[in-house]
Every structure is written in structure tokens, then in C-alpha cells.
């Protein structure tokens, strides 16, 4: 856990065009959507970093950008020191072996027309990981590693349950022995009992291979179980990052506190005033000042002007908030309810 980070993201911005060509030229409203809004984050070797946030926070897009499944608009993504943000596909290919991913929906992450053995053999053959003659053997050993019997070799995805499918997906990622694994809501669609099995599997694998992981999820409990550090994202911005237990014990950003309050964490609950809800979907026009301004129970006038920079609040613990020192000292009696009226300022 020492030395340079394995993945270093610097000022990453990812935008999607919503209108093109003439339509964009004539439009008076913004013609793009910013999914990742100037995020800097480092993932150390051998750690499991959790990335937590609601839908629309940009966490999934961040993962896809690292994988170069979407193109970064600006900023750097350094993998093992090399900036891969704008590398050509050809130069990128050998690196793809080192970064793998698990998706949220296990059924759609496997080609419905390929058997399990095909799905596992493809990466092996593509990158010539083993000799042609040994592919079958390797497939069997991967199946065993993820807790599936060899009988699953000839099955098709639609014959497998959610848990079994996710195991195959994990196996597929493991065939290349990657240095870095990105799991995007990998257990969200699984039942509670299956979730436990898959989480344990992740833990086992990480412990035995020392792989670094980025675990994207909206479920804080899951993040807490698996991750050593957690980053919290909101509306494209990283608002707080820190060691897991520290974050749970002493959440500093109002959004983090609200998240923890909803899952029943006492530390936050006692002093956290209720959070106002977004009435309307936030748009690009709302990207001025602190992105959390409209829902924040402790906002001040200066929060509306400029999004707060990161402030160091402890070893490895950073928070993007002007008022974090106050929240740390909030008394237990401050429980004023914030009404929704104050928030909805749309015409």
C-alpha cells in the first residue's frame, strides 16, 4: 500500500452531447450533460476503494471512463504512471488486460448466444494467456475458483441464476489476472442471500490476489463491508473521501451525513436535520457554486458562488465543503426541519 497509486485520476471531466450539429448551434439551452465534473481521485495498489453515490452522481461514468468505454472530455487518467485518457485503441489494447470490469446486470453482461465456456475462453484466447491446448483446463480452474462446478461449462446464460451468472462474470474478469477490477453495482441486482456469497467471493479474491478494486455502489453497507476507503460523489463531483471507518464515525460533508442518517447510523442521525428533496431533475444550469447548495441544511451565501475545494480534515480524509468544521461540532439539539419550500426555486 505504499508508493505511487495504481490509478490516478486528475481533473477528469466527462461530458455527453445531447444535441448535435445544427440543432446544437441554434439551441439556447446547454447542449451537453456533464456526468463527471472535475474529479480527482487516486486508487492505491492493493486497496479496495468504494465509490458511493445516488443515480446521476457520475460514479458509473467515472468507471466507464477509466475503462475507456466512454471518452474523457478533459483531464488525465494515469494507469501505472501512463496517461491513458487519450491513448489510441491500438496502444490501449495491451493495457486492457490489466483492467477488467463486472457489470450490474449479470444476465446482460454475457452474450446470450455463447456458452459459459465460450465466455471464459474468449479472453484467454484473445490475449493468448495460455497455450491453445490448455484453454479448457484453465476454464475449469476458473470455474472452480468462483465456486461453480464444471457442469456449468456448456450452459447458456439464460439457464443460470443471477448469482451463478455473476460468478461467471467474475470468472471472466479473473481469467486475465488483472491488476485492477472495477465492479459497477455488482451485487445490486442480487438477492440478499446471494449478495452475501458474492461479496465474500470478492473479498476472497482480493485477499488472495492483492488486486486493486474500485467498487461502485449506492449501498453504503456493502461499501463498508468490502472497502478500505470510500469516496462519495454527488451530481458529478467528489464531495468527500476518506478511510471507511473514519467516514462512518465522523462523516463531514452534509450529503454524507444525510446518507448515513438514512441507513440508521447513530453518529449522523442525532444531529442531522432532514434533507430536502429534489423536486425537479437538476440540469446543467445548476452547476454553479456548491452542487449540494439547494438541498443543504447548513448552506451559507458563499456556498452558492463557487464549488468548495477539497479541504484536508484528517489523514487521508478530505471533504469539499466550506462549513465542514461546523458540522463536526453540531450539537445534538440542532434538528430544525428544513421545508421543501425553501429549496424549490424554479420558475
Amino acid at each position: 500500500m505504499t508508493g505511487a497509486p495504481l490509478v490516478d485520476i486528475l481533473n477528469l471531466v466527462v461530458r455527453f452531447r445531447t444535441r448535435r450539429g445544427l440543432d446544437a448551434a441554434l439551441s439556447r439551452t446547454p447542449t451537453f450533460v456533464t456526468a463527471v465534473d472535475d474529479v480527482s481521485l487516486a486508487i492505491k495498489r492493493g486497496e479496495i476503494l468504494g465509490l458511493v453515490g445516488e443515480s446521476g452522481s457520475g460514479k458509473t461514468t467515472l468507471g466507464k471512463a477509466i475503462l475507456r468505454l466512454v471518452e474523457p472530455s478533459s483531464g488525465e487518467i494515469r494507469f501505472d504512471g501512463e496517461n491513458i485518457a487519450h491513448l489510441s485503441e491500438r496502444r490501449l489494447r495491451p493495457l486492457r488486460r490489466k483492467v477488467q470490469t463486472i457489470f450490474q446486470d449479470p444476465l446482460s453482461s454475457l452474450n446470450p448466444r455463447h456458452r459459459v465456456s465460450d465466455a471464459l475462453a474468449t479472453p484467454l484466447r484473445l490475449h493468448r494467456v495460455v497455450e491453445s491446448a490448455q484453454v479448457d483446463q484453465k476454464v475449469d480452474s476458473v470455474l472452480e475458483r468462483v465456486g461453480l462446478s464444471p457442469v456449468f461449462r456448456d450452459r447458456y446464460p439464460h439457464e443460470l441464476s443471477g448469482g451463478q451468472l455473476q460468478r461467471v462474470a467474475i470468472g471472466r474478469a479473473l481469467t486475465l489476472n488483472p491488476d485492477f477490477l472495477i465492479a459497477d453495482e455488482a451485487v445490486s441486482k442480487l438477492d440478499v442471500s446471494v449478495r452475501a456469497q458474492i461479496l465474500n467471493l470478492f473479498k476472497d479474491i482480493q485477499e488472495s490476489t492483492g488486486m486493486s478494486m474500485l467498487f461502485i455502489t449506492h449501498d453504503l453497507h456493502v461499501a463498508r463491508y468490502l472497502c478500505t476507503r470510500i469516496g462519495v460523489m454527488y451530481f458529478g463531483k467528489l464531495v468527500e473521501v476518506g478511510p471507511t471507518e473514519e467516514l462512518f464515525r465522523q462523516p463531514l460533508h452534509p450529503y454524507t451525513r444525510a446518507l448515513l442518517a438514512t441507513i440508521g447510523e447513530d453518529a449522523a442521525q442525532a444531529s442531522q436535520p432532514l434533507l430536502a428533496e429534489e423536486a425537479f431533475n437538476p440540469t446543467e444550469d445548476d452547476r454553479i457554486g456548491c452542487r449540494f447548495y439547494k438541498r443543504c441544511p447548513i448552506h451559507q451565501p458563499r456556498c452558492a458562488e463557487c464549488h468548495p475545494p477539497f479541504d484536508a480534515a484528517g489523514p487521508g480524509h478530505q471533504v469539499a465543503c466550506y462549513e465542514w468544521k461546523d458540522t463536526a461540532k453540531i450539537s445534538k439539539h440542532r434538528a430544525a426541519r428544513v421545508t421543501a419550500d425553501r429549496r424549490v426555486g424554479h420558475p
Partner: protein
Amino acid sequence: MSENLLEVRNLRISFQLRDASIPVVEGVDFDVRHGEVLGIIGESGSGKTVTCMSILRLLPANAVVRAERIWFDGEDLARCSDDEFEPLRGRRLAMIFQDPVGSFNPVKTIGWHFYHVSRRVAHERPELFSRRDAWRKEAVAVLARVGIPHGRQILRQYPHQMSGGMLQRALVALVLQLRPVLIVADEPTTNLDNIVEHQIIELFRGLKNDIHSSFLFITHNMSVAAKLCDRIAVMYAGQIAEMGTAVEILTRPKHPYSQGLVRTSAEIMRRVDRLQEIPGELPNWRSLPEGCRFRPRCAFARQGCEREQSLRLTSDGREVRCLLYEDVR
């Protein structure tokens, strides 16, 4: 039996496929009392959704539904024809689905939805159309009750302009407009983010005390069940494994499956080194184990479990489908 709003006896549901008939729910009995929230907890494949959809007759054409009795507020739904049932659905019986976005017509305003819902109950609630704008005023009032203060503005909005949480609130408001006697909610917060889910659950909690509807609440989330439900039925592989008060089931579960579920949910909230797993997988419909369906995965399996198990009534009022417990009947 005027205490019960809904009584279901021996519900059996199977799906007719080309080559086989797949039994999905077998021998389910439960009651919903007036003004209570009955939670149905189960994982995918337990049959919980199919059970509740069958009461509302929302299953596809190849579903075969049989029951000894489906007694609802004075009528036996099992004996009703589709024509007789039709007036009940969307009036006295209402449903809230999982996906709030999909429940609205994307090319119509929220107001349009309220108008049509109001029309549906115009007969029972003539005050909604006594004056030109009466239904609109009522809609704004109901929206306020679910925590949407700018009702008039919202009525003019289209679904895509609103966030998921807001839409779910609007959906609840629509259902309230009907003044149904029974509301079936199928995992209404699963698709929502944590904070919003929390708020919707709080909303339900508040409403529960105000309105006089009963709830049939389907969920796989223990903490949600803990906050809302009065009684809980745990389903496994098409049968009810355990039934009792919410507090009892969530603190002292008796059936090994319930114990596994509750334990896993609890563990993930604490800092444990390793989660205890329920080994194995849900049984395949085509090859159900003999006797107790949970047997292959049960740590307490013993002699006798390979025989069919029926629900036993324990001395403290719990119903458990497990031979570990004595039946006092």
C-alpha cells in the same frame, strides 16, 4: 370474520408453458386485517409478486390461479368473473408497482393522470366533480400530503421532468385519491436511491396512521419491513415458510431460512469480517426437493425433513413450516 379485510385460503398458481405446467405458488394462506400492514418477504423466485398480482388479476394469460377462497371485504374474489372483478380493481383494490417511471404515461401530464383517476371514482366520490375544479383542488391537497408542496405546478409537469422520488410520491398520491380499501405495494422503493427510499418509507409510515387502508407490502429489504409492517409472512419457493408479527420475526425468527435472511441483513450493517452465507441456491421449479423445500440448504436438516411439511402453529402464535417446532393445534 369481520376483523379480516382479505382472506386467502389455499392459493395455488401455476404457469402453463408449452411442454409443462410450472407450479409457482402452492397452498398459500394468509389474512390481512383492517388497517394493518402485512409484509411479504422473499427473494426472487419465492412467489411473492405472483401471489399479490393474482389477487389483482394482473397475471399473464397462461397463469392458472386456483384458490379455496379469496375473501375481500364481503366478496369471494375466487368466484368472481372478470366482469364482476373489473370495478374493484383501481377502486377498492389498488396497486403500487416497483417502477415509478413506468407507471406513468410519458406523453401525458401528471394532471391528466389525476383527472382520470378521479373519474374512475367519480361514482363513489361525487364531490370531486361537483364543481369544475374540485378534482384539481383535491389533487393538490393529496400531493401536499405526500410531501409535494407545489401541487399546481406539478400537475402541469410531464413524468420525465420529475425525479424518481417525486414520481413515486405522485404515484402514492394518485393511489390515495382512489381511497382504496387495500393497497398492494410491490417493492415500491427498490428502484430508488437510499435517501429517497428513506423518505418514501417515512411517508408510508405517516400515511398508515392517517388513512384507513390496509397494505400488502412486498419487499426483500428487512430494514424497510421493520419500519413499516405489523405482521410479516416469509415466502420461500412458493410457500409461506413463516408468519407472525414483524417484531417477532425480525428479532426472533424461527424458520432456518428466515434466520438466514435476518442474519445476513443484520450482519451487513455491522462490521463483520465475513458474512455468513446461506449455502446453495433456490431450487429449480422443475426439480423441487422432496418434502421441505429448504432442506438442501438447511443446517438443521434431519430425519423427517424429507416429508411434506405443513404450517405449524407454535405456542406463541407463530406459524412455521418446520418440524423443529411443535404444533399446538
